[in-house]
């Protein structure tokens, strides 16, 4: 009985982490119409930032080539772990730092370039982390990544991390809601509806798009950091497009593009489908077939319910 409960908690943790990415994507696509098909870039950057900065300094016995660990996990204030929120913000910050110049250069050029560049960056970053072994231990990956609040002993650590994920998700949802419902968010919706009108109204459309891209990327970075400390192991394969970009798109499409609640609902639903289809009998549980299944759901939704289950207001 316990094992089913643990499995279920694990499922909720992953759904919660994916919800963070989907809320980020909703800022990009649902709100502003920015076609980011390289979510994996920010997933990866957030995840590696968290892993590198929280890990201890290199231990030659463990990592042969790996050079530098930030060792932030030693940071405490009055005996309380304060490093974890700092790591989350740091991951967001690194993503924002990459997103701003990327958006400034590509959005200025032409709409479709953003798709190409985000896709290209995601694969490039993966290759960089494979080849530059000094950075994060290459294909062997980073493991034994520190966990927040692990001195609290209540039997199964997953309960604690579940609470951490829920609190982080509430925080992310709150700032995303506040931003999208603000006059700033209203301009983004205007841009999505009719960019020319917004230019003719004297809005600095490029600035708004860059801000939206950076904001969404920062949220994705937080998702990446959450993932790292939940799994405690990451390697470049973790960030292959299927589970680091494609499935997040399916979550937004199914849940309801343009609505943060829809984004979160879609994340739980699609992660549920992804998780529970692995128990299908025989060849049906083949991973590739499950991807095809996810693709099919996207297509069906595009055809019959393009606004998703919880549509934008």
């Amino acid at each position, binding site marked *: 009985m316990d094992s089913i409960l643990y499995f279920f908690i694990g499922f909720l943790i992953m759904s919660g982490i994916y919800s963070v990415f989907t809320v980020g994507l909703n800022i990009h696509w649902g709100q502003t119409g920015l076609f980011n098909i390289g979510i994996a870039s920010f997933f990866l950057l957030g995840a590696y930032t968290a892993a590198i900065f929280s890990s201890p300094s290199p231990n030659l016995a463990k990592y042969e080539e790996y050079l530098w660990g930030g060792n932030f996990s030693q940071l405490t204030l009055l005996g309380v772990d304060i490093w974890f929120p700092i790591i989350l913000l740091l991951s967001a910050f690194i993503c924002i730092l990459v997103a701003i110049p990327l958006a400034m250069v590509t959005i200025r050029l032409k709409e479709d370039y953003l798709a190409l560049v985000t896709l290209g960056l995601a694969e490039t970053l993966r290759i960089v982390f494979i080849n530059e072994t000094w950075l994060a231990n290459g294909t062997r990956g980073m493991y034994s990544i520190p966990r927040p609040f692990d001195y609290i002993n209540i039997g199964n650590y997953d309960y604690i991390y579940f609470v951490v994920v829920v609190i982080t998700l509430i925080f992310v949802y709150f700032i995303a809601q506040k931003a999208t419902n*603000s*006059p700033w968010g209203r*301009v983004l919706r*205007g841009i999505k*509806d*009719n960019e*020319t009108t917004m230019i003719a*109204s*004297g809005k600095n459309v490029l600035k708004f798009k860059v801000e939206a891209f950076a904001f969404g990327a920062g949220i994705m970075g937080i998702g990446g950091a959450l993932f790292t400390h939940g799994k405690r192991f990451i390697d470049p394969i973790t960030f292959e497009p299927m589970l680091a970009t494609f499935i997040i798109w399916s979550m937004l499409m199914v849940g309801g593009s343009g609505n943060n609640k829809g984004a979160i609902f879609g994340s739980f639903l699609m992660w549920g489908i992804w998780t529970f289809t692995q128990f299908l009998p025989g060849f049906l549980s083949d991973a590739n077939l499950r991807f095809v299944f996810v693709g099919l759901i996207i297509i069906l939704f595009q055809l019959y319910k393009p606004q998703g289950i919880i549509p934008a207001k």
Partner: protein
Amino acid sequence: MLKIEEVYKYFGGVKAVDGVSFDISSEKITGLIGPNGAGKSTIFNLITGFSRVDEGSIKFENKEISQFSTQKMVDMGLIRTFQLPGELKNMSVLDNLLVSPRHHPGESLLFGWINSRKSNHFEVKNIVAAKKNLEIVGLTHLINEKAGNLSTGQKKLLELARILMMNPKLILLDEPAAGINPTLINSLSKVILDINKKQRIDFVIIEHNMDFIMSLSDEIIVMAEGKTLFKGTPEEVRKNDKVLNSYLGYSEK
């Protein structure tokens, strides 16, 4: 108030605007007519910063503006529409208006949170202005309707209300009467006159509908093949041979 001198704009071999000069005086409605491809919309693009002149000068209130950004021109009160209605289709009529004014303190991602009191104050002021402007164009009853659900004519009226939110001095309308039914053409006409007289906002209007433009305009500029052909009152335009030959054949269609 608007002075265009020897303006040129070529697209490869196409001489879209080929040495155009005219000026528009204050407190007037000016019609800009001419066959398709005459260069009328291109002139609007040049005036509003959507396109840059190859040569020539554009002055607004004695300031050279031909190199200004659209943002700066909007700040100066120079605001345009396009041939296609530019409504924000998934947003309510009210939101279409509220999103329009520039320099909203709440439109800053970083400072919107800090400035929330200033932002709320601005927002409240805008809601009052929005209601007033919807009344002027007669769309008060549709305030909460999605803009995409309006008829073409209502969308054009909405556009006028949207522009009024931006403190315009000169409004440039590109074919406002195109594709809308006669009843709404009449209300559009009335609304434009009303805005012009009561608020002393000037208009330049590109239009093919001759009844509409002739009855509305104080002055008419006729363009053909990238050049200005004639400028005068509607009466003079009607009587002018050059215009008759090159253009009025078109208007009878």
